[in-house]
């Protein structure tokens, strides 16, 4: 056990020694890996921020039924009866125009706009939460409501939220594909760096093998080399993402404040950031494993 630990310590020390002996190559490799990882990680962080923006809106379908200002009382009562008795309606809430104006006033950035109005431009409205999912049935309900004489306009509020959700889903898939591609790239990068390292140590490896070193002994320092390189690349990726988002945020802050919002792009959640490191470490190890195993098979006497 102690001997085993010592061998690992020696292998790690050897790997770190090689990295410091070739500082520039090591830094460049870490940079290449870091940039490759920063792209999907940054995309993921952007997407997470946008999603938090979208969750402010309900994804449940909702119908806003705006009433004509000149609607007659019996027409209004007929509409109210229909909304309260229709089996397709789960809940219907009446929002008088004074209430709507107050809500609008409370909305960030719109207070000044509302204050500038000299009269309330908003209509009375019903907010309807249907039982039906978006589709033909909901469309039929909207059509019937549109036909009511008291109704000026019916709006299906879920449409934009659904579009956003679909867009976010597509973006997520694109990022997953990008991440998979770049993970392959990372394995290929370490495969190649480790191969170069192997070639500079070819004599030592072949002699070691001839005089009794096990394959595990020969592999070990290269595993550490690959893993340390992957880890350094992962750390660098986090720094790049953090720096990139910070730079973007100065622009985003200006844009958001012009809308009266304090929205900012958020950095990766701590959990996500931490999973990136073992993942990049593993990819580096994998590249080293493939490279060394291949080489050991090549020099295996037949």
């Amino acid at each position, binding site marked *: 056990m102690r001997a085993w630990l010592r061998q690992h310590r020696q292998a790690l020390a050897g790997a770190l020694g090689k990295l410091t002996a070739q500082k520039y190559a090591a830094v460049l490799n870490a940079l290449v890996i870091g940039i490759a990882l920063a792209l999907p990680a940054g995309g993921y962080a952007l997407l997470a921020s946008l999603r938090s923006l979208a969750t402010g809106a309900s994804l449940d379908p909702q119908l806003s039924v705006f009433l004509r200002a000149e609607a007659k009382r019996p027409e209004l009562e007929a509409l109210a009866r229909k909304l309260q008795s229709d089996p397709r309606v789960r809940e219907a809430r009446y929002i008088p125009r004074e209430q709507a104006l107050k809500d609008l006033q409370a909305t960030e950035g719109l207070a000044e706009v509302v204050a500038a109005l000299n009269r309330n431009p908003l209509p009375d409205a019903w907010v309807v939460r249907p039982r039906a999912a978006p589709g033909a049935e909901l469309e039929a309900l909207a059509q019937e409501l549109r036909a009511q004489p008291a109704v000026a306009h019916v709006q299906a509020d879920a449409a934009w939220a659904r579009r956003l959700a679909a867009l976010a889903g597509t973006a997520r898939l694109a990022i997953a594909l990008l991440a998979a591609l770049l993970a392959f790239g990372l394995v290929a990068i370490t495969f190649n760096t480790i191969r170069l390292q192997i070639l500079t140590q070819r004599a030592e490896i072949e002699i070691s093998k001839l005089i009794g*070193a096990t394959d595990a002994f020969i592999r070990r320092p290269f595993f550490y080399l690959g893993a340390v390189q992957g880890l350094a690349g992962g750390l660098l990726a986090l720094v790049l993402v953090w720096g990139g988002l910070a730079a973007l945020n100065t622009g985003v802050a200006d844009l958001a404040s012009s809308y009266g919002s304090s929205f900012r792009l958020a950095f990766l959640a701590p959990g996500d950031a931490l999973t990136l490191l073992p993942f990049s470490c593993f990819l580096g190890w994998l590249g080293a494993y493939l490279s060394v195993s291949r080489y050991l098979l090549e020099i295996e006497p037949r």
Partner: protein
Amino acid sequence: MISFSGVAKRYSGGYEALRGVSFAIAEGEFAFVAGHSGAGKSTLLKLIAAIERPSAGAVLVNGQNVGALKRAAIPYLRRNLGLVFQDQKLLYDRSVFDNVMLPLSFGELSGREAARRACAALDKVGLAAREKANPVQLSGGEQQRLAIARAVANRPSILMADEPTANLDAGAAAQILEIFAAFNQVGVTVLVSTHDEALIGRFARRVLRLSQGSLSA
């Protein structure tokens, strides 16, 4: 200790390096493998160390069938064999001392014990004073002795050398053989291949004479 029975080695391309070779070497014996270059001397030694595998027949080392060893078992066989290669295979990116340390780092020795054994091995071949030098700075005879020190560092029970005197003058060659004789005296089985008949004549030992891949009496 080492026994060949009906061993043949055919390389891809049809060249037959060894055919029907049978012999046995007892523990503690000292034997020469003699013959012209191309007679199969190197192949014979490589078969013992599982660097090559026989095409037919069985090679036994300490009762183990070396030709049938699993890949993972081969390193442990080699640690019990001291190998001196024809081209020495020294590492020129490190000191004499670190060359001897290489095989000692594979096993479970502590750093201090490994260093102690490396010093002892260098001492036995008379290179203790040169431990900090680079192998390039050594003479041909000294390089050969360094190769021997590395081979014996793990205290193997069998020591094998492939043409260890090939590029040395008679004096240095005799010195090398004295070192092998000294190890043999403390119980190490020694197998030395050479084409130098004068040398074989001077050291009266058992001779396995190879000619075109076969043993002659």
